[in-house]
């Protein structure tokens, strides 16, 4: 049993000048063979491993990560968590995740700082109003706590928004999900890694997958920079690099990997205590616990694996921010970065088996995968362990691109997250 984290363990360790803390997770060399290997040590991959061990008793498993865990989109995202999606399938998936978030710190004994500060989506034209009301009604009937706010209620909930009706695209109202919010992204990866490792999962960093070995329509193992690893089940959770891994296995996915940028301001005292998103004016903002304004918007339109997008996206995003929050004009951008997001044609993810036995993909989360991390891990673990999807991820299969049964969430995801 590892150190249990608590105020008492902090006090105890303070007496020994914090010299006696244990490793949160180890740094092993890969074994020759595992029962299952997860490719990708981001939040989703680590959560998958955690639930495989915890709920399905698969502990002879490994997570292989080409860099450092949580270093991809997990460590680069703006951490919005909500479940107010339109379609039943999506609402089921994301609310499943949200319910896990609500107890995740306790479950992992790692404070992921899940902050239910509410997420508000603004409407700026009449079709926005129709779409958001439609979503709110659907949410209510699906048991999701979304409410419609009129403009004055929007202003009351977040007073710094410019709700003047004279601006280019005035705020005509919005929806609010109070259970929604943000979490500390690094802590999610680290908490799952620690939890999984404690149950025996090997977390192997700096281990890049170079090939997938197939025997006919079955997988046999992985070629990695740390040698060949034999396994009958491979769960790929490689986000922007999903297609790269798929190509190794000789399959194609309906994905395009595009740059998504975000930025933070210098830290300031609390000024906005919720998350506000706008589709039509195309930007969103929240404030981190450090005080930085966390800002993001949409992707570039082209495929790129460079982890950097074009400046005009940043300019447009801040333009939108200043339209809605003219008080932020003198705030300063402290840091700006990019990630690679893998986008599906219907803006919904894939959590699915493939035509190759033992090869599973969890990808296509586009700009909004962080919020699903615990649910995605849980359902992917179920899919891998049983070789069958859970009913909550059944709709997110690969076959939908053949049958046409898409889960079109463009309305929900038109702006990143």
């Amino acid at each position, binding site marked *: 049993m590892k150190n249990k984290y*608590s*105020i008492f363990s*902090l006090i105890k360790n*303070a007496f020994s000048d*914090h010299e006696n803390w244990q*490793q949160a997770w*180890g740094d092993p060399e890969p074994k020759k063979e595992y029962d299952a290997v997860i490719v990708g040590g981001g939040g989703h991959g680590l959560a998958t491993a955690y639930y495989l061990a915890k709920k399905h008793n698969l502990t002879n498993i490994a997570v292989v990560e080409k860099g*450092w*865990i949580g*270093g991809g989109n997990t460590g680069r995202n703006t951490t919005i968590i909500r479940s107010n999606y339109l379609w*039943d399938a999506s609402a089921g998936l994301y609310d499943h995740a949200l319910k896990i978030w609500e107890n995740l710190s*306790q479950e992992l*004994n790692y*404070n992921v700082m899940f*902050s*239910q500060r509410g997420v508000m989506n603004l409407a*700026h*034209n009449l*079709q926005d109003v*129709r*779409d*958001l009301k*439609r979503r709110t*009604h659907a949410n209510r*009937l*699906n*048991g999701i706590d979304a409410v419609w706010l009129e403009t004055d209620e929007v202003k009351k909930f977040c007073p*710094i928004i410019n709700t003047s009706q004279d601006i*280019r*695209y005035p705020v005509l109202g919005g929806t609010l999900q109070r259970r929604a919010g943000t979490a*500390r992204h690094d*802590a999610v990866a680290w*908490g799952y890694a620690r939890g999984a490792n404690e149950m025996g999962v090997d977390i192997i960093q700096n281990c890049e997958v170079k090939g997938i070995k197939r025997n006919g329509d079955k997988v046999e193992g992985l070629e990695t920079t740390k040698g060949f690893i034999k396994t009958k089940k491979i769960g790929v959770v490689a986000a922007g690099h999903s297609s790269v891994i798929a190509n190794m296995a000789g399959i194609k996915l309906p994905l395009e990997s595009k740059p998504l940028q975000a930025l933070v301001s*210098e*830290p*300031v*005292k*609390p*000024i906005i*205590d919720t998350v506000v998103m706008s589709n039509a004016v195309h930007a969103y903002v929240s404030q981190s*616990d*450090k*005080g930085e304004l966390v800002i993001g918007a949409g992707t570039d339109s082209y495929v790129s694996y460079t982890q950097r997008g074009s400046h005009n996206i940043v*300019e447009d995003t*801040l*333009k939108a*921010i200043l339209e809605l929050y*003219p008080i*932020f*004009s*003198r*705030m*300063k*951008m402290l*840091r700006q*970065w990019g990630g690679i997001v893998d986008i599906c044609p219907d803006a919904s993810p894939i959590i699915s088996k493939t035509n190759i036995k033992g090869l599973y993909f969890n990808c296509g989360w586009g700009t909004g995968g962080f919020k699903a991390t615990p649910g995605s891990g849980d359902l992917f673990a179920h899919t891998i362990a049983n070789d069958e999807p859970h009913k909550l991820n059944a709709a997110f299969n690969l076959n939908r691109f053949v*049958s*046409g*049964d898409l889960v*079109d969430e463009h309305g929900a995801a038109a702006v990143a997250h």
Partner: protein
Amino acid sequence: MSDLRVHKTKYINETKRVSFKYDGKNYFGYEGDTLASALLANGVHLIGRSFKYHRPRGIMTCGSEEPNAICQISDKNDLTEPNVRATELEIYDGLEAFSQNCWPNVKFDIGGINNLISPLIPAGFYYKTFMWPKSFWKKIYEPLIRMSAGLGKSPTEPDPDIYDHKYVHYDVLVIGGGLSGIISAKIAAKSNLKTLLVDDKKTLGGSTIYQSNDSFKIDDQHSSKWLEKEINEISEIENLTVKTRTSIAAYHGYNYLLARENLTDHLSIKDKKDKIRQRLWKIRAKKVIVATGSIERPLVFNNNDRPGILLSNSINKYLDYYGVACGTNIILFTNNDSAYETAISLHKKGIKNLIVDLRKNSQSEIAKQAQNLGIKIYFNHVVTNTFGYRKINSVELMELSDDGNTTIGNKIKLNCDCLGISGGWTPMVHMHTQSGGKLDFKNDDQVFIPKEIDNDQISVGACNGDFDLETIIDKTVNKINIFLEINNQDYKNTKVGCSIEKEKRNIWLLPNKIPLGKTKCFIDFQNDSTAKDIKLALKEGFRSIEHVKRYTTTGMATDQGKLSNMHALGIIADTAGVKMGTLGTTTFRPPFTPLTFGTIVGRNVGKFFEVVRKTSIHDWHVDNKAKFENVGQWKRPWYYPKNGETMHDAVQRESKAARDSAGILDASTLGKIDIQGTDASEFLNRIYTNAWSKLSIGKCRYGLMLNEDGMVYDDGVTTRLAENHYLMTTTTGGAANVLGKLEDYLQTEWPELDVYLTSVTDHYSTASVCGPNSKKIINKIFPELDLNDEDFPHMSFKNTKLDNINCRVMRISFTGELSYEINIESKYGKSLWEKCINAGQEFNITPYGTETMHLLRAEKGFIIVGQDTDGTMTPSDLQMDWIVSKKKYDFIGKRSLYRSDTIREDRKQLVGLLTDDPKEILEEGAQIVSDTNTKPIDMLGHVTSSYFSPNLNKSIALAVVRSGKNMKGQKLIIPMKNKNINVTVSDTIFLDKENKRLNA
């Protein structure tokens, strides 16, 4: 002024006193001072409190790397600015600055309690606690954590200042106006290359410009004198632009750089008025020369953060550039020769100082010079502690063991009022790495230097790891000649004499007798991360530098780790027993220094936020009190309230008038695409679901366009103007996308087709006159036009003239009424409209907006793409199978209509809904169920359009419902928040199913 202003320098204008306030107290400095130099001249060191422990902090540097001395500027709600570095801000009359992150004040700060409990709050403590009891998180722990956020305060009112952008192209951009930058710019510009030199400071010259030591001479003059002459020379070169107070913020690929020019921040409050505050330069340069120099690094030892502890070279700059002494009894603690220059400068001004040097000896010329001047030097010694709460008052030294791992001998305590530290120099490789460049580790100097990447960029001078004058000049000249493919001989005979550093000794974490766990050896000063935090992270299994950085928050403060990154890496390498350079570095992300949002956005704020498209009739709508709706970028009249009417009343009146007599709609915003070519008909066949070949000239036809996925994408009426000439209309919001899509198919899939597309949306204004009296009105306007139903039937068009101006009149209808659309060149749109209004006056012609238009078409069951469809509806789902040609071999999206999901019978389908209570109007977006008792509730669909029809005197709605096609007459429920509304599924056409009104 105080006696800390020790001498005159040419950079400080002592004839111009500038008064300013700091924390409410009046001070003055001189023109040329930064806030930091002026405060130091007034003996003020304590400037703020650190983020986590609220420890007192003072000015530490003289530039953009400053971690501590950051202030709130101004207390005006609109002009206030947080986190401004006192070391960069030039003072001006009326400046008011405040310390941050402290309460009630900087001298006595309640938050200082955090320093006392610091053993309980090591790196990452918040991940380990605040979890029990769970209910405390939301109400107690989280608010507490969030309360402690931030440093300064955001403005709370809109910014009155304006910002600007400028786009420039240069042959050569030189970043940094120090010694190597000036040489580079001069060589480039004299080689006939259009050159831009930028420097973030007010004056050029970098750190050489105040170097006046006999050990550093160029052409037998002090290096500063020589450089002054060079600077004077470059000001004469014609194709060289020099921009000072201009800092490169970001270096993107393809030599695209952003620079922020500061225009008014240094001006007095009255001079700032009505001027552009900052300008963002967007630079494309064929070649970029990076000459950003290096910054001095601190040394890491216990309590290395007190006010009064500065970087050694900053003390030198304050002295020789600003004329300010940072103390009167100064200790310099160093591991390299550069502190000796500071010592000698201080000595020359009569300021008491001594040197503590980690190294066992220094044989260089400058060290000898210091020794000869009688400056006391403690070689092989280390500072192990400092004392003094609000300002340093003494230090403790010990001797170093031979291997440097421990301290030996007795403690020596020395009094001082200022401690200068120098841990060597770090090349500023930010620009290089931002542009995608990689780094090499140079072991001699323990620095990362740029690995050259391509032919379009080069780093020279100290940022390339070249530190001594001779190497800088030599290598810069050579490299620039090769880089620019020129042969400049200007510096061939330049004679350089400079002291060369021979001994080096670098220890990332200095040894101490006190266990590390009980020390505070700061690495990141602003974020309060210490050496023991780094070690804790490593102990807990964080190995990657990015992990350690994130776990300890090292390098994540407003200085973005300029002072801390190297030490963090060094300590990780030492602890893990690996070589520096194998760990990599953290990524330097743009911007180089924080960049104001307003500057990034420039002029595109307020009314310039985004283009507003208005029709040529817009002014008439405004004059007639229309309310407007945003549709895409267009402003469309939404409704025209009369005498205080509500929207509902106005829409009821407009709708009724349109059916009873006559209405008029500005339809100019609909997309219009002119299609010509011998294959135009074939093209339409492939684009639309229905057939076009047989459409006669002069006739109009409605078309439905799918995307390749089989879902409805756009719709509109297309008119055949001539054999090979069509005019297509699209939805207002979809126009640009439709044109783009059509061009895509035409150019890439069907280049063999002879078809040309031109957007003519803006070329024509369209007035749509409808209602039983519309024919009479049109007849009044166009008396020569034969409106006879046989000659000019529904779905046909005619060319005609209005006062000699060509017009196209289409007899088409989106309301179900007899209706004519008149297209005229845009500039005549308003006069056409007014003619219609005048002609219609006797028939009570009523202008109506989009809301009434939506209502009228809903009465007829016509869809609006984007409202009744959402990208998931096929033509069959819309009960529009009639428009899908069975005969055509192919059209866009056809194949997708036969997939297993698209042929399902139980897809959501468009239906009409009638409320049981005809007065009850459904909410658009409301969900539809058949049973409210199932769990979860099974949602069958939703209401897409809903209105109260004045013509039918009841509420009507369109909706999409699962299997709706076969549900006519069935009862369904709309479960609202507070009640259930009962509805019956109906036909989608509510009025005039026989289309009699079209020919009324």
